[in-house]
């Protein structure tokens, strides 16, 4: 009797234990990642935050995607065709595409997703402006009718950044573009485990067993997305050093990014592989064109004369292996790279700067530099700019504020006395710069444009021509003209491009080099 009771007790205790710890019942292959930022907002259309975009790439699929050379490749699309008059585009979807709720992906879903995206994304907006209609030909085919040719159609659909086109179910995509989505239903290779989402702390994905990957090997964000692990846990570390230490000791498997300084901490560690990240960052100086003194092109040119990318890169990055002096506004190592118009000789020209300031009639008014105090990539820029300005006789004051306050302030064109600014910096992931239409630095519509309020109707005209142009050689010529003008008028000053590094444990393989951290293809021994 007693034995039976004891056994019963043991059995029930065991059952209780197993019930409380279901994960222990089967061992799941879990990958632990440390991202570059904390995920809070789940809707990739409402916000252009990189972390939300990265999350979206895991759970949603895209019609096209860029490969490692930034060329658009088909992803969800099986085949497509363009009408002879270049005014209609027809797309056919692949077989087997389905959402996480079991529903198949249809042409209607694509149309609704494109419509939502086109309300927010700069390239999408341009597409919407020339679209006369989008309709579903059948369940897997849809057609877009235009009133004039749109050269960057595939480029737009394959956009890897701000904002990419993610395909969502029609019922979700039909919600207004300002309504923040909370339901995450995509057709991507991972499912989002909503119940384990702790905003700002950690979030979890599980493999979508029903996903049908393409046959090709993965290449950048294109190719076949084959998931080799069962579970991906993403853990946010507010302190990068802690994340690095965790990787060093095997407490996490993969670190999305670290800079050149931090790389040296892992250099001796045999259990860790370090790689340069494929997509560099580019930092820039932006002027407020709407307010004096930088409304005067000569004053801007004066600053341009003393800025050398070398100095900025040495001061902020340090390691020459990790940075590159890059003259191209649209990225070095991309199809549109060009050195046309680049004024930086590697040596600051103080005399020229002072002469220009005199010509401009600059009287020594103090300017205001604004900078976000809580973002590491911005930290070295403002002090260095201040020092340079001092050398040519422009006194300045640095005002630090928190990121969202910085964004708000930077978006205002008002005079400083009314809450404005004169000079600010911006740091971009290069994939935001590669598209002449999407590159925000070339938004030249004046007061209503992207911060900096660059005003140049000729550049806007050039962009319009680019949009209608389908011949790559002619497109390149237009881009060169844009760049030359941008340097002459000093739209902004590029401060160099630099690479971050990614690192992962030696027992991790198949991590796809791409500007967006994605976990398909990754295996763990």
């Amino acid at each position: 009797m007693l034995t039976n009771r004891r056994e019963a007790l043991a059995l029930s205790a065991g059952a209780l234990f197993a019930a409380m710890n279901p994960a222990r019942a089967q061992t799941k292959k879990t990958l632990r990642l440390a991202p570059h930022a904390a995920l809070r907002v789940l809707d990739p259309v409402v916000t252009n935050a990189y972390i939300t975009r990265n999350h979206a790439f895991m759970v949603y699929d895209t019609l096209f995607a860029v490969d490692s050379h930034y060329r658009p490749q088909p992803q969800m699309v099986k085949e497509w065709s363009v009408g002879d008059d270049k005014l209609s585009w027809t797309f056919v979807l692949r077989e087997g595409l389905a959402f996480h709720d079991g529903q198949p992906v249809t042409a209607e879903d694509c149309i609704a997703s494109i419509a939502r995206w086109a309300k927010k994304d700069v390239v999408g907006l341009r597409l919407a402006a020339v679209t006369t209609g989008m309709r579903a030909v059948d369940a897997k085919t849809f057609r877009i009718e235009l009133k004039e040719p749109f050269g960057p159609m595939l480029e737009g659909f394959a956009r890897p950044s701000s904002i990419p086109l993610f395909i969502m179910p029609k019922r979700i995509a039909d919600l207004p573009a300002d309504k923040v989505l909370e339901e995450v239903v995509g057709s991507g290779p991972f499912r989002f485990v909503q119940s384990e989402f702790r905003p700002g702390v950690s979030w979890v994905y599980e493999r979508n067993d029903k996903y049908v990957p393409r046959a090709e090997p993965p290449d950048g964000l294109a190719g076949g997305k084959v998931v080799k692990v069962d579970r991906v846990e993403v853990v946010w570390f507010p302190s990068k050093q802690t994340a690095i230490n965790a990787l060093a000791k095997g407490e996490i498997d993969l670190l999305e990014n670290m800079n050149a300084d931090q790389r040296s901490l892992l250099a001796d560690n045999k259990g860790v592989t370090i790689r340069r990240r494929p997509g560099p960052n580019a930092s820039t100086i932006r002027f407020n064109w709407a307010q004096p003194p930088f409304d005067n092109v000569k004053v801007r040119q004066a600053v341009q004369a003393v800025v050398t990318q070398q100095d900025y890169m040495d001061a902020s990055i340090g390691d020459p292996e990790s940075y590159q002096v890059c003259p191209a506004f649209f990225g070095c190592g991309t199809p549109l790279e060009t050195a046309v118009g680049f004024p930086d000789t590697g040596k600051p020209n103080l005399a020229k700067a002072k002469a220009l300031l005199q010509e401009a009639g600059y009287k020594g008014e103090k300017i205001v530099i604004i900078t976000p105090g809580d973002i590491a990539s911005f930290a070295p820029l403002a002090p260095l700019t201040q020092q340079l300005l001092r050398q040519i006789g422009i006194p300045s004051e640095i005002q630090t504020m928190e990121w969202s306050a910085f964004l708000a302030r930077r978006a205002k064109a008002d005079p400083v006395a009314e809450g404005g600014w004169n000079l600010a910096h911006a740091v971009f992931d290069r994939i935001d710069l590669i598209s002449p239409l999407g590159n925000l630095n070339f938004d030249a519509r004046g007061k209503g444009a992207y911060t900096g309020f660059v005003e140049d109707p000729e550049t806007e005209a050039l962009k319009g021509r680019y949009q209608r142009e389908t011949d790559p050689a002619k497109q390149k010529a237009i881009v060169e003209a844009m760049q030359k003008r941008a340097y002459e008028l000093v739209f902004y000053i590029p401060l160099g491009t630099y690479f971050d590094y990614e690192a992962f444990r030696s027992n991790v393989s198949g991590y796809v080099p791409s500007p967006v951290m994605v976990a398909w293809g990754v295996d763990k021994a």
Partner: protein
Amino acid sequence: MSATERATSSARRTHFVEALLANRVALFSGILLLAIVLSAVLATVITGDDAFLIRPRQRLRPPGAEFWFGTDALGRDVFALVLHGGRISLLVGLLAALAGATVGTAIGLLTGYFRWLDPIVMRVMDGVMAIPGILFAVALVSLVGPSLVTIVAAITFAEIPRVTRLVRSVVLSVREESYVRAAEGLGIPPLLVLVRHILPSCIAPLIVQTTYMFAAAILSEAVLGFLGVGFPPDLPSWGNVLAEGRAVFQRAPWTIIAPGLFLAVTVMAVNLLGDGLRDRLDPRLSRAAKVSS
């Protein structure tokens, strides 16, 4: 000698020895503090005009002959940063301590004397104490923007209730004294009574409390800097020097150790000075400080 006599005389001896030792420690702390303050005040003289020069090709150099404390992530001389940083940090500490003392004393005097104020004011003080000081400071500075005024105000806020309670308890015990009663009886206006007759009794514990507040304020500024809501980068303070060092700590530990050491030594010196003052200025009065702090 009986056990009691032995105990008493040994207690008396140790009390005297303690007083002497405390004084020596306090004296030493005072001198150390003076040295640090002087180094901060004379920072420009010691380090020259180009103290904050960014040297792009001298990043993260370890301490050596040219740079005594090494260089930071922008190639700036850490020694110069620490010395100049001391100015801001010490200034913030001093201002916050004085502001806290002033506001707290004013409120404490009024609330101890005018009893009808007491329930309201003390509830408000309780409310202020219930909010964690650092959180309030971080919230305030990150919302309004970092400036000397904001940071001092943010740090002062959390210190006020302690001073208020201290002063209030002194007022409560003193207001029944005969000389106060006499003054009231003579028709002297209440504010004058407060300032002339009651305030002097508060001075001793106030000095002690202000010293401790000075130390706490310096530390608070450092924590604010560490959490990323301190002074802007062109205004080095120990807080934001530490914050910048945080990003490269393992690669270049001197960027944290140098300012951290200065900070710790300063705060220690101030605290020890406070202890010495407290022991000097009648331990009985300091009990009020201890119980209400």
